[in-house]
């Protein structure tokens, strides 16, 4: 069948194979097929048993390494997150503690100040009361003195007016009468 085929460019070929177009020379087919099968099977076995597992293992190992590294990074990140949380908790605790201490101190100081103020006030009140008592006493004393002075003055005035000194009792009664009004 091959003899009919000529070259595509149309001019006579000069090869050893008597002018047939080489891809259609059927007498070469058996040889080509035998060697193709041998070469292809050999290559297939070499690839599937040797070369491809080698490449596949490298890729697997790399993938595993990458996955491992990512997992490790994740674990480390979780760890650091934990540390941050612990730190923040410690900070919050310390802040609360400080607040508590400050509050306590302030309350204590306020209480002490209040107590001091109270004693001072009591002291002052006592002093005030005492002073008022003194004033009252002085006033009473003064009032009794006023009576004496008034009696003396009355006596002197009456003596001057009528020439004779009235009796002490009359003067005292009159003064007392006048003071009552």
């Amino acid at each position, binding site marked *: 069948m091959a003899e009919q085929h000529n070259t595509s460019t149309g001019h006579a070929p000069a090869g050893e194979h008597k002018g047939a177009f080489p891809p259609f020379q059927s007498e070469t087919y058996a040889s080509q097929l035998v060697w193709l099968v041998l070469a292809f099977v050999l290559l297939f076995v070499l690839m599937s048993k040797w070369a491809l597992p080698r*490449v596949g293992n490298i890729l697997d190992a790399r993938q595993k390494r990458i996955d491992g590294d990512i997992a490790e990074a994740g674990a480390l990140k979780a760890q650091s997150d934990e540390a941050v949380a612990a730190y923040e908790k410690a900070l919050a605790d310390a802040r609360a503690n400080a607040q508590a201490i400050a509050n306590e101190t302030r309350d204590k100081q306020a209480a002490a100040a209040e107590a001091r103020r109270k004693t001072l006030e009591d002291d002052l009140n006592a002093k005030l009361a005492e002073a008022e008592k003194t004033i009252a006493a002085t006033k009473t004393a003064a009032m009794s003195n006023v009576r004496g002075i008034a009696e003396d003055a009355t006596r002197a005035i009456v003596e001057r007016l009528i020439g004779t000194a009235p009796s002490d009792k009359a003067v005292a009664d009159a003064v007392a009468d006048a003071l009552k009004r």
Partner: protein
Amino acid sequence: MAADPIHQFRIVDLFPVAHIGHTEIIFTNSAAFMFAAVIVITAFLVIGTAKKSLVPGRLQSAAELSYEFVATTVRSTAGSEGMRFFPFVFTLFMFILTVNFIGLVPFTFTVTSHIIVTAALAITVFLTVLLYGLYRHGLHFFNLFVPKGVPILILPLIVFIEVLSFVSRPISHSVRLFANMLAGHITLQVFAGFIILMGSAMGAVGWAGGILPFGMIVILMALETLVAFLQAYVFAILTCIYLNDAIHPGH
């Protein structure tokens, strides 16, 4: 006659190996380049992974890249169940890619420029899909040809078309790769032939004018490098799509 664009596809007998019936099995240049590809691929992967470093070097990066590239293709097209075919798809992809790339080197031979090679690979894929589909799903595998929700009236037509497209897969699968490699190499050789032709016909002026087809070769070379990769990738991804049918036949 180096200008003959077909010359590069010649099968050169190196030494005979055996006789099967009256067919002679000969070790040819094609076989030599196949085994060269096997050696190159194996060396690339094994030497690349020799150090097993966590942070890969250049060669290890390339080896890992090829592995992950094919693995991603298989997983995204045929699902995680398709990963059982990963060594098969990887072997196919690397084999085709490597023989394509080796074929780009001047004076070498392109294994995939022979239809028998690409057809054998495509039929291997086809049979793998068929046998695995039957093994995995039994006769339910043929549900692949019966799409759901199709009116019963046109169902026979649809089934016929589905079966036809399934059966013609190995043809399109193999011819696509074969034709791409063949056409690319012929084009390169034709432009290279222009340089010789102009040089021998017009002397110094011709050699100077040869700069134009030479520039064309440079551009085509870049294109062919892309095609070499792309065709290997297309072959691999189509394999994945077909395998996906075997794994999940219910559309």
